[in-house]
């Protein structure tokens, strides 16, 4: 068996604000296998984003970090952009409004793959085609505001994978979108990860979405990892009470309805 891509152990993150310490993560240990799709679920404030940012090395300077993050699957410490791509939640604000799409998609590739102007443009065009932006040629010279939310998220994904990262982190990449678009983006991520043999860390608060996409699911609650395991185990035989609660309150087409079939 290949070594894990990344091995996180005892990870703690705290934010200190004028004397008050706010623990965003406490003693989290997770190993990510190369090529797997791991979903992290948990409610708001449970530390999901903090974990993603810690992996990508993007935590703000004031964060106090404890524990270790080792990368046995790589021969050197990873760099954000090169070995790790990140997609954020809000497609409206994660693209620079005043720069052309082509530039934003290609800039990671130019830096990490050492591409020239032309080659970078080619690469951007290729990426935009792969994330299925209509008329990708014209899109290169367009600006973010000219696209819908779903399209922007596709562009953000293209930019994140521009330098062929080994690990793609999608932090609530679909939460701001409507269900139809959300399903499309989730499918796109799935395809891309498979094609590029990337490892995927998929952060969401929707356990159903996670279950449809991920190989394994990690459940965060109040800054702690409460449970991690293969998707079907977590969904069908959760070990922790919190996970059971999550599943119980989850609503899907199978959930019992709260009202009668017709109004009284």
């Amino acid at each position, binding site marked *: 068996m290949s070594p894990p891509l990344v091995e996180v152990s005892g990870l703690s993150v705290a934010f200190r604000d004028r004397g008050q310490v706010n623990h965003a993560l406490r003693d989290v240990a997770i190993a990510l296998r190369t090529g797997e799709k791991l979903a992290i679920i948990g409610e708001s404030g449970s530390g999901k984003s903090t974990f993603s940012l810690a992996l990508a090395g993007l935590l703000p300077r004031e964060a106090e970090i404890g524990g270790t993050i080792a990368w046995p699957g790589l021969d050197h410490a990873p760099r954000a952009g*090169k070995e790790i791509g990140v997609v954020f939640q809000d497609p*409206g604000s994660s693209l*620079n409004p005043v720069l052309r799409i082509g530039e934003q998609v290609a800039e990671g590739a130019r830096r990490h793959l050492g591409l020239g102007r032309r080659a970078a443009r080619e690469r951007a065009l290729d990426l935009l085609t792969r994330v299925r932006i209509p008329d990708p040629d014209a899109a290169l010279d367009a600006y973010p505001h*000219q696209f819908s939310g779903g399209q922007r998220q596709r562009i953000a994904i293209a930019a994140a994978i521009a330098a062929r990262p080994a690990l793609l982190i999608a932090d609530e990449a679909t939460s701001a979108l409507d269900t139809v678009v959300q399903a499309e983006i989730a499918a796109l991520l799935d395809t891309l990860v498979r094609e590029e043999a990337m490892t995927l860390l998929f952060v969401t608060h929707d356990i159903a979405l996670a279950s449809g996409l991920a190989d394994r699911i990690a459940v965060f609650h109040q800054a702690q990892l409460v449970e991690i395991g293969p998707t079907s185990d977590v969904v069908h035989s959760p070990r922790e009470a919190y996970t059971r609660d999550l599943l119980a309150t989850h609503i899907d087409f199978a959930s019992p309805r709260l009202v009668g079939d017709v109004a009284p």
Partner: protein
Amino acid sequence: MSSIPVLLIVVVGTFLMMELASGDAVDAYLVSLGGGDAGLAASLRESYGLDQSTLARLGLYLASLVQLDLGYSVAFNRPILDIILERLPNTLWLMGSATALAFTLGSALGIVAGARPGSVVDRMLSAGSLALYAVPSFWLGLVLSLVFAVQLRWFPTSGIETIASGKTGIDRALDVAWHLVLPVTALGVLYLALFLRMMRAGMAEVWRQDFVLAARAKGLARHRIVLRHVARNALLPLVTVLGLQSATMLGGSVVIESVFAIPGFGRLAQEAVAARDTPLLMGIIVVSAVLVILVNLMVDMAYAWLDPRVGSAEASS
């Protein structure tokens, strides 16, 4: 274009304000004569049409303004347009250079400060700019002229160029530039500080935005993040302020022109008021208003060029 009614308000407002004045152009003229009798005053008033009612004069003024005729100056005994065109370049040079200096240097230093918020460089630049921001420009002008013109004699004390030098071409340009160093510094420093502070504040704001985190996540070089992503966006509000400040700067140049005896627009305004030359003052105010409108138009164009979101047909969903 909504500038026409705005200009109308400006014109009528200024006219009415000048009606509040005690004494008219003939009085002012008679003083320059060292006095004169009542008959002389009456005949002068008649010849300048100052004996008519306020409304009639306002009507006449507006009518001539429509034909782009700014009228005739009693104080200078010349067509107002000529006088204005003679003075305008000096002020434009002064303002233009001060703006260019303040904007380029101010935003550049703002970028330096905003590149690492909270760093030593940032704190020093912030404190320095705040101090400069608090210095009255006319006082700074005095101090500069005392030190660099009178004491050290590096620069001329006053004027816009060496008088009657017969210089032309590049020599003259250099001469003017040499004369402008101190006044431009005195006028520009305040705005330099303003732009620096705005740039810095703007960058601090942009640093918090998601797309900067995204840029960091792409592993871009720091200078690229600072310049291309952060500074580029922080520049936008600066451009807007540039337009808003043009009027303020025009006003500020009045005092500086007085300190450095530069025959510009501001001084002309002072002279016009002192001479109760209503048409001249109106001409000055109308022309400066048009100037400000033009600057704002240019700024809008620059903004539209810098910010693709503006004026674009497709808007976000």
